[in-house]
């Protein structure tokens, strides 16, 4: 996971990996062989990189079902997509009830479920999650972290940005601390959790 204060450049890192912003220098390697900075966003997605954007960014005018279909856009085989979406709707029963509603009309928690499901439909290898708990009630946040763990356990890598540092550090294996665009600390999550400055800034001091 990546932690850092507002404006540290966390979302910018994610957008750079996705190809939505072009870094002025440096390179981004995926699986040690794909140079992402040379690719367009749709090509990067095809390598197996998916996204849960900050603030969800669903297509509010599309139905829940169509949001999920767009999540699987690269799969041209309709039957395969229907099957994958079927699995998602089983996993998220709340969404099954709302499948024909426009996504803009859902509650924040439901929208976050759609955002997670949308990221999963294409069967990615890596999901970039930008503050998946943003604006959610504590009980829903717990569900989201449960899901993140589950997704990760199913073999999908996750790079997560979170303001809910305490909970995120429990889920994550490795953490990076970002300050104005630079990685200033990185290490196993439990070490970072005990780091002096991290405790001070993000975990509300010692206790």
């Amino acid at each position, binding site marked *: 996971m990546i932690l850092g204060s507002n404006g540290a450049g966390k979302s910018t890192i994610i957008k750079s990996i996705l*190809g939505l912003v072009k870094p002025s220098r440096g390179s981004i390697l995926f699986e040690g062989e794909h140079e992402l900075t040379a690719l367009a*966003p*749709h090509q990067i*997605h095809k390598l197996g990189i998916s996204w849960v954007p900050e603030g969800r*960014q669903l297509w509010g005018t*599309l139905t829940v079902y*169509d949001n999920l*279909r*767009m999540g699987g856009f690269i799969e041209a085989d309709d039957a395969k997509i229907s099957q994958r979406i079927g699995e998602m709707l089983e996993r998220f029963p709340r969404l099954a009830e709302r499948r024909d509603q426009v996504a803009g009309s859902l509650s924040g928690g439901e929208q976050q479920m759609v955002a997670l499901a949308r990221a999963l439909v*294409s069967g990615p290898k890596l999901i970039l999650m930008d503050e998946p708990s943003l604006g959610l009630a504590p009980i829903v946040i717990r569900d989201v972290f449960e899901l993140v763990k589950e997704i990760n356990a199913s073999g999908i890598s996750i790079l997560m940005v979170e303001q809910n540092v305490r909970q995120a550090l429990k889920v994550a294996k490795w953490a990076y601390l970002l300050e104005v665009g630079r990685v200033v600390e990185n290490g196993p999550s439990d070490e970072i959790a005990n780091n002096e400055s991290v405790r001070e800034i993000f975990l509300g001091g010692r206790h």
Partner: protein
Amino acid sequence: MDLFLQQLINGVIIGSTYAVVAIGFALVFTVLRVINFAHPEIFMTGMFAGLLAGSHISDNFFVVLIFGAIGAGAVGLTLERFVLRPLRGRDVLMTLIGTLGVAIMLQNGMAKFMSPDPVAYPKSLQVSLLLSDDIILTSTQAVNFIVSILLLAGVSFYVRKTRYGRATRAIAERPDVAAAFGVDVNRVSQVTVALASVMAGIAAVSVGILYGSAWAFVGLFYGLKAFICMLVAGNRYFEGVILVAMMLGVIEALVTGYVSSNFRDVAAFTILICVLYFRPNGLFGSYDT
């Protein structure tokens, strides 16, 4: 009463063509974020392509329509490749000038090579249909209407039920997210411009048949009205654009019938100004840009 009915019919028919041109504007605008000022001239090119096919190849109705589609589609694709794509992401003024330049070229080029005056369409399809003693629905009007309605139904199906059509709406609402989920924005832009152009070309041929002529400056007339329809309805819901286009056609026809054709355009602009004053995003809302 018969005047009313007659003008209602006339209005709905012309409105259906406004709708096709307006949807073309809206499609291209929502996907490429460009007001394609050349769109009305693509319509005009289609009209002449149909005319040329009709007088030199065959006056079969479908052949003429297909050539209208091909002519307009070819111009649309060329425009996309050589003007819109290189200017993507640049200042809006650049695409504005670019498309306007192409519009002027097409218009004056056609006036020079064909004629600045209306050129007669092959007359073989023109028969009048009498609904009653007083109300006339010509077969060419019916053809124009049916062609437009089929095009509108087709594009509605496209954006709601097909993979690329959904991508069109996804780009319209959130271009970045669409790209990050595998949509090749260049490719969809190309398909969108082609689709808008082909629709315009087909509708233009049916208008050419309706009025019995093609005219190098016809784009001004339909383009302006279609543009008004898109602004009044907002670009968010195509059904809204279609509804407004039909209503504008009817209002214009009624004004022409009961007041004077001189006031027709005054009515259209008055509606535009009133709606934009109270609802700047149009009656049915627009995508954020």
